[in-house]
């Protein structure tokens, strides 16, 4: 290996230096793979969502409720992203009678399109109507990392506080649906819904939102209805 500092410029012969234009988005390769994933989903007639939220916001709990609401009529599959090789969440999904595969990100703070591709490989997609991806619990990193799903969903939970859109703005931009989960806790927490929604409106005007409780099931039917409409659109396409 050549690593002597003097080497570079002690020759007399011409060095051919040039400045080459690149102009390539840093996420370009990921986005290409994401498009590939989406084509695969489209070819199978599957509607897919990417659920993002901080740890403990209630991603798995909401998914279980959606399974309750929809799995008698539609075939659902789940990809669980976790930073460690623990299958707690995936086990809960499987126990609810829905196929799930777990992607261990090896400490990585978000799923990416490449991991998603492996998740798709691991699942039997035949007949599946709805694919739910539970991203790694994180309010920063999954933003802007496309997986190839058709809709991005954020779950904000009441105990996290009403200032999250102001502190973590990126996650709320470019999403299609937001759930405000744990509304059963509103009486116990100082959460100013107007302040929260004002921040949200600046980042993502007119965003579809559902206040829900995965504990009492309040509001879950609204989100399930939204999903059902998307599933039927996909079937009709």
């Amino acid at each position, binding site marked *: 290996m050549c690593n002597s500092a003097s080497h570079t410029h002690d020759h007399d012969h011409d060095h051919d*230096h040039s400045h080459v234009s690149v102009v390539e988005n840093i996420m370009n390769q990921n986005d290409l793979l994401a498009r590939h994933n989406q084509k695969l989903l489209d070819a199978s007639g599957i509607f897919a969502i990417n659920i993002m939220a901080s740890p403990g916001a209630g991603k798995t709990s909401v998914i279980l409720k959606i399974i309750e609401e929809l799995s008698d009529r539609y075939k659902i599959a789940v990809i669980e992203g976790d930073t460690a090789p623990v299958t707690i969440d995936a086990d809960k999904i499987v126990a609810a009678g829905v196929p799930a595969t777990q992607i261990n990100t090896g400490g990585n703070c978000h799923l990416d399109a490449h991991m998603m591709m492996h998740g798709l490989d691991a699942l039997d997609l035949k007949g599946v109507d709805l694919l739910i991806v539970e991203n790694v619990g994180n309010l*920063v990193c999954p933003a802007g990392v496309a997986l190839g799903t058709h809709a991005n969903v954020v779950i904000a939970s009441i105990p996290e506080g009403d200032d999250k859109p102001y502190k973590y703005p990126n996650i709320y931009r470019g999403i299609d649906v937001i759930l405000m989960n744990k509304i059963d806790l509103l009486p116990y927490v100082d959460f100013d819904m107007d302040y929260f929604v004002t921040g949200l409106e600046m980042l993502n005007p007119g965003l579809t939102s559902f206040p829900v409780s995965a504990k009492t099931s309040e509001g879950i039917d609204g989100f399930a209805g939204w999903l059902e409409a998307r599933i039927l659109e996909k079937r009709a396409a």
Partner: protein
Amino acid sequence: MHELAVTQNILNICQRHATQENASQVTDVYLVIGDLSSIIDDSVQFYWDFITKDTICEHSLLHFERIAAKAKCLSCENEFALKQLMPCPQCHSARFKIITGEEFYVDSIKINKNGENHVQ
């Protein structure tokens, strides 16, 4: 944030373009990054020095061009700096569109084509 993953993407892009150009060495990498991305330059630099060992990009310099976040009000067309999430300072409308600050790309690289400089 996920600087390691981002830095790996940058390296892949540089390697691919350098190979296309038959480069033997990449000496400089120019990045354009908007302030709305939560990337820390120092961490990218740290990972860069580490992951470029034994590659065509070893010892190359990273240059960051940072772009400030700016918004344009959809009501009064006022352009304002978006240091934090806030309504239009002129008319207080909460409807605006972000016009700069989302940049996130490798703009260019400087390369050597002299075959003797490269690291094996």
